[in-house]
Structure formats: C-alpha cells, structure tokens
C-alpha cells in the first residue's frame, strides 16, 4: 500500500492545508507534512508503484531507486529544515508556496515516466515563482516567472514531441527524435541555471525573503540535474555546458559584493560540476553527481539560512559587513564558515567527500578536461568562498544591535552543519547510499594532502596578489542585461547615435500597438460590431440566413 504513496503527496496536501489553516495549526501541519515526506522517502521499497491512467497515459507517480532515494532524501531534509527554519516567517503565502515547491521537487524525483515528470516540473515552476513573489520583490518575481514559463514551455513541448513519438519512459528518451531531445535538454538546462541561462539564479534568489531563499537554493537547479541524470546520461554537450557554467560561477562569485548573490553564483558553479559529471556519463560519474547534489543541498541550505539571519538583522548582506557579526552572532558566523569550507571541499566536510567521489569518477573514466577543471574549481571556490570574503571584511560596529536568531531558526542550520561534518568524518555514511561508490577512498593521506595543497596554494597566491583583489559590485551585468537594458540602446550609444532614435522607435512601436488594440476594441468592445446589443430582428435575420445557406449548400 505504501509504495503507491508519493512523498510529494503529504507536502502537496500540506500546501493546500497551509492555505486554509492559520497559526500553530498551520505550523504543525507543515512540519508534519515534511516529516511524513522524509519518512516516505526512507521507507518506500525499491520499485514502482502508484500507477494512474490519465488521458490515455500510464503515469507512474512512485518509482524508487537509489538515485531517486538520495535526491529525495536531500530534498526532504531541505524541506524539513527549511520549514522549521521558516516557522518564524509569518507570510502565509510563502509557507504554502514552499510546501508546494518542495512537494513538486519530490514529485519530480519519484516520477516514473516523462509525463509525470513534466507535470511536476510545471508545479515546481509555479511553487518557486510564488516563493520568490512572496519575498515582495515583484519585478524580480515577474522576471523569474518569465524565465520559468519559458523553461516550462520548452519542457512541455519536448515531452509532447517525445510522447508523440511514443516515448514516455526515461530510458526511451535516448531514442527520441532530435526535436524532442533538444527541447527537453534546453528546458532542463535553463532550469539547472547552466550558462548562458544562469542569469536568473542570482537575479531572483537574493531577492527572496530570508526563509524563502533556503528553499530556492535547494530545489530547482538540483531537480534539473536529477532530470539530466535520468534523461541525458552521457550527453557530451553537457560537459561543454558544465565547463562554461563552472567558469561563469567562479567569475561572477569573485566579483559580487552581496553575500546571497555569492551563494547563488556558487550554486551555479557547483551545478556546472554536476553537469560535467552527468555528461561524462559512466555509472560512477552519475552516482558522484548525485552525491555532490546531496552534499550541496545540505550545506547550501544551511548557508542560505545563515545568510538569511544576516539579511534579517542588517537588511542587506554586503560581504564586508560580515565583520561585526563574528562576535555578536557567533553561531551564524560558525555555520557560514563551515559551509564555506565545505563548499571549497576542505577535508572532514561533506564537500570533500562528494568532490572525492567526483574526482575518482572522472579520473577513472579518463575525462582529463573535466577532472582538471574540477580540481581548478576547488581552488577557485576557495578563493571566492573563503579568502576573498575574509579580505573584504571591514571592522567596526554594526548599525544595529545584533544577536543570533531564535532557536527555531538556529536549530536547523546547526543540525545541517552537524550533518555536513558528520558526513565529512564518516564518508561511508553517504557513499554507501548509492551502489558503486562505497569503495571510493576518501580520507586517505594522498587525497587529503592533495586537496589541502590545492587550497593552500590558491590562498597563498591570492594573498600575494591581493593588489588585484576584486572590489566587485553589488550587481553584475549578465546575459539578461541585454534585454533589461535593451540591446539597441547599448548599440545606439556605441554607435554614437542619440538615444532619441530608440525613444522614437519605441514610441512608434507603442503607437502601432496601441492603434491595433484600439482597432480590436472598436470591433470587439462593448460598442463594437461583435459586442454590442443587436436588435431582435437582425438576430432572426441571421438565423434565416444560416438556414438559407445550409439549404442552399445542401441542394447545390
């Protein structure tokens, strides 16, 4: 019986109840839903269940295998921790949206066929957009919605094209037509935040509320990585996209002055690593990508919680402002530090475990390019996550009296930090979860020395070359600048043309559109030919004409 219950179900039900309930009842239901989801993830047997017939499709809502369970566990843990962390958040929309979002993410993970997968991806877009929206930054939310509507359209079109060709299972996607594959791949890459579609991540995530960003950091990009593992294992284009994404993440993370933007860019960079592993395509590489996703969800969620604490205390999170927090918010600072070290893959953290798995997988496969880029990215990560923030720290008093947040917000991040360290100390706890990775050596002297050497050398280089320490800016141009500051305006300026040309052109276009709309309204508006009240006689006449036409045509 239990095998038919998708872990998405309790969360989706919880989302519905969260709309209806208030206060403590809502809190209780939300936490219970997350606990139930986590329980289901751990208890479900390794097989398919929950088959539903819908519109002639055979939908499989529950299909469990080790990879699904691993991603499911990561998402369920993030959901539970995120919900507990968000208990102090009094925005009712965000709670329901977060539950919907988490439910959709789990639905994707346990989907057993392409249609279910696509449906949950659309739900994921809705949930995440609502989470961004409830952060209160409407313009950013609309931009986010536009990107995800586009990605959703690509996915739906891809799934439709695939099912038109008779492809409804994941395995069969490999044999689908080029159109279906192209659309699905594009949709997943946009969702994963792969370069050149990375701009939306750092645009939206820092604008969510202190609690909403935690969910955002966990689900969308990793769900897309999971989709790529299922649909496109060994797709060589992914190595190229992954590499570009790693470089993008490093460059942007090194130049931002905003803590949550830095975390967002680092999500993108880490997803790039996972993409390279998926593109490499060996069973071990796919498993390593899944492990890295798990570790990343855990420590990135807690870092977002810590960053959220700072946002809440200070209003903004420029990197330099971390200084005053060290003493007044010791737990937050410690969590942030552990997270940054895990991100860089310091031994005895979860990051080291998953990066060791990646390194072993890529190395054994002989994927030299990916392996060297992975190693270099560790150095780069250490620079942007640890060294540069330390150098930017400004001393001085904080603007407001500060303290660590309340226990309900502190406890989840502390527990996640403990989990990060526990995995670091006992790698087998994570590695044993997915077949084939149990034998990977992690805490061996050569690996430890190797990783420490990479990080130490990078740190030394930065210190010696600190003259070029990047001042950065709070916001950075990205691909989306092309349309947010319209391309032709930039081009017009470059060509020395007056901006007025743009203004005139825009006015012209607007006038044309307005005229078209007015014409439409003349025709269809309340006074238009189609919308106004007609005299009874002409109604009767139209009936007579229709009858006459039918008869005439019948006799011709």
């Amino acid at each position, binding site marked *: 019986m239990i095998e038919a219950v998708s872990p998405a179900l309790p969360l989706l039900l919880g989302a519905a109840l969260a709309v209806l309930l208030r206060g403590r009842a809502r809190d209780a239901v939300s936490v219970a839903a997350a606990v139930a989801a986590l329980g289901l993830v751990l208890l479900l047997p390794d097989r398919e269940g929950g088959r539903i017939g819908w*519109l002639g499709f055979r939908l499989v809502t529950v299909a469990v295998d080790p990879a699904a369970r691993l991603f499911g566990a990561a998402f369920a843990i993030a959901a539970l921790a995120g919900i507990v962390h968000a208990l102090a958040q009094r925005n009712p929309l965000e709670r329901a949206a977060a539950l919907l979002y988490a439910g959709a993410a789990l639905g994707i993970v346990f989907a057993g066929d392409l249609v279910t997968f696509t449906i949950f991806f659309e739900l994921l877009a809705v949930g995440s957009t609502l989470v961004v929206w409830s952060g209160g930054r409407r313009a950013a939310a609309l931009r986010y919605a536009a990107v995800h509507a586009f990605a959703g359209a690509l996915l739906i079109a891809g799934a439709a094209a695939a099912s038109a060709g008779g492809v409804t299972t994941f395995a069969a996607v490999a044999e689908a037509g080029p159109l279906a594959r192209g659309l699905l791949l594009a949709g997943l890459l946009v969702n994963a935040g792969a370069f050149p579609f990375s701009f939306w991540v750092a645009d939206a995530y820092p604008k969510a509320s202190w609690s909403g960003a935690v969910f955002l950091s966990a689900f969308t990009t990793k769900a897309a990585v999971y989709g790529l593992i299922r649909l496109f294992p060994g797709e060589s284009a992914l190595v190229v996209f992954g590499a570009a994404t790693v470089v993008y993440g490093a460059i942007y993370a090194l130049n931002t002055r905003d803590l949550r933007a830095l975390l967002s860019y680092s999500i993108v960079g880490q997803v790039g690593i996972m993409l390279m592993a998926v593109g490499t395509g060996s069973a071990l590489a796919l498993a390593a990508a899944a492990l890295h996703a798990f570790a990343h969800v855990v420590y990135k969620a807690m870092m977002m919680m810590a960053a959220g604490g700072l946002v809440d205390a200070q209003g903004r999170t420029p990197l330099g402002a971390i200084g005053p927090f060290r003493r007044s918010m010791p737990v937050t600072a410690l969590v942030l530090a552990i997270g940054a070290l895990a991100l860089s893959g310091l031994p005895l953290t979860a990051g080291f475990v998953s990066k060791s798995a990646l390194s072993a997988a890529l190395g054994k496969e002989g994927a030299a390019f990916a392996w060297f880029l992975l190693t270099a990215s560790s150095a780069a990560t250490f620079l942007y996550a640890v060294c540069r923030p330390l150098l930017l720290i400004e001393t001085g008093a904080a603007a407001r009296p500060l303290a660590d947040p309340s226990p309900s917000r502190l406890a989840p991040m502390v527990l996640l930090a403990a989990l990060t360290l526990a995995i670091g100390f006992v790698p087998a706890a994570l590695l044993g979860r997915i077949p084939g990775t149990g034998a990977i050596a992690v805490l061996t002297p050569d690996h430890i020395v190797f990783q420490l050497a990479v990080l130490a050398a990078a740190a030394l280089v930065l210190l010696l070359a600190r003259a070029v320490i990047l001042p950065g800016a709070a916001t950075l141009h990205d691909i989306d600048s092309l349309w947010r500051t319209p391309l032709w305006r930039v081009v017009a300026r470059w060509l020395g043309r007056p901006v007025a040309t743009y203004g005139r052109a825009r006015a012209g276009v607007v006038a044309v559109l307005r005229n078209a709309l007015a014409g439409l*309204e003349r025709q*269809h508006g309340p006074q238009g030919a189609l*919308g106004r009240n007609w005299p009874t006689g002409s*109604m*009767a006449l139209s009936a007579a004409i*229709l009858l006459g036409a*039918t008869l005439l045509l019948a006799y011709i």
Partner: protein
Amino acid sequence: MREHAPVLMVVVPLFGAVLAALVRRPGPAFAVALACGFAVAALAIDLAVAVSAGGPISYRLGGWAPDVGIEYRVDALNVPILLLLGVTAAVATVYARRSVASELPVGRVAWFYALYLLCLTGLIGIALTNDAFNAFVFLEISSLATYAMIALGRDRRALVAAYQYLIIGTIGATFYVIGVGFLFLATGTLNLSLIAERLGEAEAARAVVTGLAFVLVGIAMKVALFPLHLWLPNAYAYAPSFATVFLGATATKVAVYLLFRYVFSVFGAAFVFEALPTGALLIALSLAAAFGASTVAIFQSDVKRLLAYSSVGQIGYATLGLALGNAAGLTGGLVHLLNHAMMKGAAFMAVGAVVFRLGTCRLEAFAGLGRAMPATMAALTVAGLGLIGVPGTAGFVSKWYLIKGALEAGMPWLALLIVASSILALLYVGRLVELIWLRPRPADAAPVAEAPLELLLPTLALAAATIWFGLDTRFTAGLAQAATVGLFGGAR
C-alpha cells in the same frame, strides 16, 4: 419502483414546480426545490448505474408502443447529461436560497422556484425523451420557464433580454418543429430510433435534407452557436444570479446534447457530413465562436457578460468536437459539456456571491476582492484557469481530447487554432485575476465580508470538481468515451 426511474426524473421536478407554486411562500418553496434537486440527482445516479450495468433502458409512457406512444430512453449518450442536470440541480439549489432571497421581492420567490423546477423538468425531459415531438414540448416548457426566470431579473434590461430570447427561442423552436414535420412526413413516425431505422428506406430524400437543415438550425439557436448567440449575453447578464448559474451550467449543454443525438443517432454522421456541408460549416462557426466571442469577452466591463461571452466561445469547443466527427473529437466535445458546466457553474456562483455582497458585478468592483473574499475569489480563479485549459484543471482534459481529435482528423492547423484560442481565454481570465489579486481595494470601498457558507460551499464544491476531474479523468472521460462508443455503434 426502480423501473420507473426514467419517468420519475421528469415527474418529480414537475410535481415540485406545482407544489412550489401552490405553497406560495419562499421557505417551503425552497424546501421543495431542494428536495427535488437531490431527488433528481439520486435518480440520475441510479439511472447511470443501471445503464452501465444493464445497457440502455426504454420506458413506454402509458404503456403505448414506440410507434404510437412516447418512449423515454436512457443510454450511454444521455447518462452524462442526466448526471450533469441532476448534480447541478442538487448543488445549485443549495446555493439558491440566499441568492434568490437577496435579489427577488418576497412575493415572487415561490414563483421563481416553480419556474426553476419547470425549467429543470423541461431540460431533463429533452435529455430523456426518444420522441421528436415530445422533445419539442419539453424544449418549450424549459424555454418558457427560462424566459420568465430571466424576466425576473432585478435589472430593467432583463425584460428586453427575456423578450429577445423569447423571439429567438420561439423561432428556433418553430424551425425545430418544422424540421420534425418533414421527418414525420418522410418516415411516418416521431420516435427517434424508428426515424433512424426508416430514414434508410425513406423515399423523399429532399424532405429529409430539408428536415435536417431545419432541425439543426433550430437547435443551433438554442445552443447559441456563434452567429445565433446574440440573445445569450444579455439573458445571462441580467437574469437573477441563480438563474444564470443554473442556465449557464445546463441549458446550452442540453441543446448541444440534442444536436449530438440528431447528428449521430438519428441521421448518422455519414449522412449529415456528406449530404450537407455541416462539417465545414460547423468547424468554421465553432472557430468563429472560440475566437470572436472570446475576444469580445476580453473587452467586457461586466463580469457576468464577460463569462457569458466566454460561454459562447466555450460552446464552440463542444460543437467543434461534434464537427470533427471522430472518436477523440466527440469525447472531447462531450467531456467539455461536463467540464464546462463545472467551471462555468463555479464561476457564475462566485460572481453571484459578489453580487450578493456588493450588489454589482461590474469589473471595477472586483478590484482587490482577493483579500476580502479569498475563498470565493480562489474558486473563481480556479474556474478561470479551467476556462483557459491549464493542465491539472478539467478544461485541459477536454482541450486535450479536442486537439487529439483534430490531429486524428488530419487537421493539425485546427489543433494549433485551439491552442491559440486558449490565449484569448488567458487574456480575459488574466484581466480578472490581475484585478482580483494584484490590485489594491479602492480606499473608499466599503468593507466586504466573505460570502456566506450557503453560497460558498457549492461554489467551492464545483471549483474542487474542476481540479478533481482535471486530475482524475477516469469518470468524466470514461462517461464520454462510453457515449462515443455508443454513438459509433449506432451510427450508420
């Protein structure tokens, strides 16, 4: 007693109408209507179970044989319609009490319930009867009751609307009865099954074609097929809210059912689409409805009118499914009748609740209502999403089958047009949703409370059904598919 269920479905609301008129007081009249609503729903379910278990049921009125007397026939095609009527009657009647009491003078409430039950009697009769002339009688019963119900609207324009509908409805009924005359001439019987049998050997092909044309155009006026839809927006907009709910969910659906019945089980698809240019004409008119009426809906400033124009567009989808003439298209058309009844029922109920609280359904009045009446507005939003055809709502299911039907018929451009027309729905629903949820309430607006539970529960029930039947399509699509199989079995 169970074998009398077909006739009881007509007799119960007929008795109810008489009783409601006799008691003359609002309270007891409502009680009668409520009892009838639930009784009709129970009978419809009973019939559905009986038909699915034992095949079509035939009932002879007065014990007379079909070539002399009137036969009621329940089969896979009218079971969905009977369920639609029964369930709508039950759910809508719960909604009726407060809404009617707030919009009609006390002295007219009992009459209104009598008219409502009479209208229900007529609609059920049309769905049940297998007799061409009996269908005309029920058509007239339901129409006359409808004219009177519309005329009871608060707005003075209701009188003009009722008058226009009266004229158009009478022309339609006249066309229909003339067509039936031709058919009687050609076949010597009024029983639809017998007409279908004897049409093959009928000599007077001209009379048959003429009869078909008259019947189809006559019913098309009741359907509010595109150029003949002009009566509908005013009728829906100015009728009492409850009448709009009931008519919007049922009246045109029953007319479309009659169209299905004539095209497929009487004349046969082959004859209709080959002897007459019906297929092309119907597709053109359906598309004109989906695009023209939906575009008009975008520019409406009165929400009831907006939804009424949307109805004209949505009926276009049902007739489109009929015009496609293949199994998927028919399933889509039929299932859209059910789905549209849920969605439009929920939408009109929500608007009726706004009229109950604010006394108006002008578009401006909806600004910021999302905060004041969250549950009602959520139901309206869900219904709107259904009208667009968002996946996960019932509206998507019907469009899915229609698109499938268009593709199977070798008309991919039609599938594209169906999708494109959804964008128009997106515009008029989006306009409403934006107003409800994103605009602030005007500063000088009086405080508004959530709709009372009596109005809210039926509204939410239909909105929930819109989602439920969007996710679990086994029941609705199953009914429609069974009907389609029946039609193709019966088509010659």
